């Protein structure tokens, strides 16, 4: 693979994976809270 392809892939995959994981983690955490409240 060329360097520019590696950069494009690396940056995009990292951004999308981090944002998805963060949001999903927030959902998981708030679900735990909600269950405790219930």
């Amino acid at each position, binding site marked *: *693979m*060329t360097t520019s392809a590696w950069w*494009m892939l690396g940056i*995009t*995959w990292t951004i999308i*994976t981090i944002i998805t994981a963060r*949001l999903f983690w927030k*959902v*998981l955490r*708030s679900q735990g809270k909600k269950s405790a409240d219930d």
Partner: protein
Amino acid sequence: MSTSQRWGTRIGLVLAVAGNAVGLGNFLRFPAQAAQNGGGAFLIPYLVSFLLMGLPLLWVEWAIGRHGGQFGHHSAPGLLDRMGKGRWLKYLGVFGLFTNLTVAAYYCYIESWALAYVWHSLVGTFQATSPTEFFPAYLGVHAGSLFAVPPEALFWFLVTLGLNVWILSRGLAGGIELAAKIGMPLLIGFGIVLAIKGLMLTPGDPGVVQSAASGLNFVWQPKLDSLTNPSTWLAAAGQVFFTLSVGTGSIVCYAAYLRRDEDIALNAASAGWMNEFVEVVLGSAILIPIATAYLGLAAVTAATSGGSGFGLGFLTLPTLFNNWGWFAPIAGALWFGLLFFAGITSSLAMGQPLISFMEDEYQVPRKRAAALFGGLTLLLGFFCVWLYPGGAFDEFDFWSGTFALVVFALGEAIIFAWVFGMERGWEEITRGADMAVPRIFRFVIKYVTPAFILLVFLGALIKPAGGDWGAALSGLSSGTGWSFAPDSVIGKVLHTGVDDYRWFDEAGRATPELVKDITRTLLLALFAACTWVIWYTWRRRERKSS
């Protein structure tokens, strides 16, 4: 009754909405679109479109759904009726029933192919028979014939429909949510296994002619000059639009089962980004790298030139898996299992709006409403199966799965920002939010998102021949006129590209043009019938209340 139904868990809801968005296009269409429209550079307009059109539209649809749900509505006509005083609003909601029903008809058929391929992979069919021979026989396609009655394809179609009806009849928490909780982790797990196995292919492995990394390079090599081409931007906006399942009326339906103060901002963003993860990370790492490893880059470039990886996915990959020895049947089952889970979590979302409508307006029990959805889908689906060789399937896909979606989404975006009003709209999106929605989105939702969808709409309406916008615009200014592409809306209506337009040939046999026109008439009649049902339902409702 539906008003007492709720989602069981928040994770379940997010997975159900993400499952609705994740479809076969994530694995078959995205990588081909990216590779053919600028490679890695495609991701720039793609992510811009996601942030300015996709994500805002998700928030808009969730807000419309939760708002109308408080008044006991759970399907698009009633939900849109609550967005303002205009009596016409509910009629835009006709799209939310029509689109789901007609898309489900052919989508469940594709889904059933994936299920059939799981079976045939496991029993080793593709070790003896090439999929290029298997598939036409499976579909009952014969040269020169416009009709097909394929017994095996109908069997798997019935199995798939039965499964959908059974899951839908179990309700939100016990059916759709459970299916998403099982299907989505399996889909991601299968995808990761295939991506790792595929990306490890190097020359020297049996049958490998090029490293899988060359395929990954094909998808990701940025061709920055493509960014000046309007076609790249339209392709990216179109991909974002269709991957999120917005404009179908299913997200508004799912969101209608939320309580008034339950979060929608984080739920919508989480489901949307999960779809992006599956599409961009997993979708780009399986099909094209594996196909490139065994076929070489030139063959894969040619196979994806139309912007779809469907042929590679269904006709080529099963043969290529044969190079994996004892793992071949498992790899085939994982690949088509992944496509099946992607499909069923989407088709369930297409069934729910009709069920909600029947429950809300006619107090039809859920099981009977699910059976009604199954029956209507079977009728329309049989039309697609029967006239598949004549092109009925493609007509359904174009008018329902492409055009109707954009019209509905455009209407939703305008109604939300300009009829309901951004003041109330913003309050609706942010009420109970578990994340801070940047205020810039208030401006984006009001002006940018509708403009973006309008561009996608115009792109579909007047797409020029060859997709060459530059040449078309210069042709317009030089007075030679605008030539429409055969797959533009106007081109379709005018039968552009058809040299000899007639319904019967010299021998008196029906032509594909007849099939196309019959299919369009059927779709128009169905839309008119849905509109009448909405008119009748509201008249009945008014009489009851007076």
